């Protein structure tokens, strides 16, 4: 994990939290959408807050895809859940929603969970399973170099018992 990868993970966190907040703000302006008037969901996009929220969520998606290209899903997802700490701060101080002490405790637990993940390896897919598995798949023939180089790199930390690089 280098600085650039941490920056990508930070982007995932911030864009997700900011996007959700913008969406929430916009949807509150629009009000409840009736199940009988489903076109209301489409029209919601015309609200500027919803539009900005969607742009931010697109940025989130780009960083999320980048992170998933070199890290486990079970590594990236908890890292993104740090966004709920951000989200609670935004909900409390910008949207003026009530955040109870129990919810704050929940946020602390989520943060603790993220702390557990952050110390471990970001990629754990078995080096012994992958070559056997990929040997039967045509995609290896299309791009042999990156996949093999990646496997070799990933093999090292797993063999060493997940020691910090």
């Amino acid at each position: 994990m280098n600085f650039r990868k941490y920056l990508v993970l930070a982007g995932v966190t911030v864009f997700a939290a900011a996007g959700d907040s913008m969406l929430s703000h916009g949807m509150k302006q629009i009000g409840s959408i009736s199940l009988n008037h489903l076109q209301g969901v489409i029209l919601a996009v015309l609200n500027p807050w919803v539009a900005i929220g969607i742009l931010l969520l697109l940025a989130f998606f780009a960083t999320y895809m980048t992170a998933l290209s070199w890290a486990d899903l079970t590594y990236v997802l908890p890292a993104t859940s740090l966004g709920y700490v951000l989200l609670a701060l935004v909900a409390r101080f910008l949207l003026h929603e009530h955040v109870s002490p129990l919810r704050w405790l929940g946020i602390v637990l989520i943060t603790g969970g993220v702390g557990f993940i952050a110390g471990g390896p970001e990629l754990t897919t078995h080096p012994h399973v992958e070559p056997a598995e990929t040997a039967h798949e045509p995609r290896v023939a299309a791009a042999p170099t990156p996949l093999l180089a990646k496997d070799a790199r990933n093999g090292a930390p797993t063999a060493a018992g997940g020691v910090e690089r």
Partner: protein
Amino acid sequence: MGHPRLLVELSDEFMKGIYTWSAILAIVFASVVGDVLLARAMKQVGDVGALWRRAGLGTVIGRTLGNPNFLLGVMAMAVAFFSLLFALSWGDVSLVAPAAASLTFIGNAVAARIFLHERVDRRRWIAASLVAAGVALLAG
């Protein structure tokens, strides 16, 4: 006179809760399916940063958009997104967003182990439990 109005208000709150939680469950299911497909797609694409430096951004985008798992994953995410819009119009953002995405995280821990063969070790299960507890408190 006050009783009927009270009942109407109670049943309104109740139905709103049902709608919100149904939307949250829809988000969770669609997100787990989407996340697993997208994670698989991006592992097939390979390290985006390295690929970008070697072959350019066009190759990264082309290879990503041309991946069937990616397209299916995006469709699942679209379903999750519209469910999120519904949920947000019925409930508070500080309930809907953490509840949906953190329940998604738990579903993903199981799905990643089964479908992506990720090694979900004790460290990651502890993290899953902590986040699960956090979710329960956030929803309470």
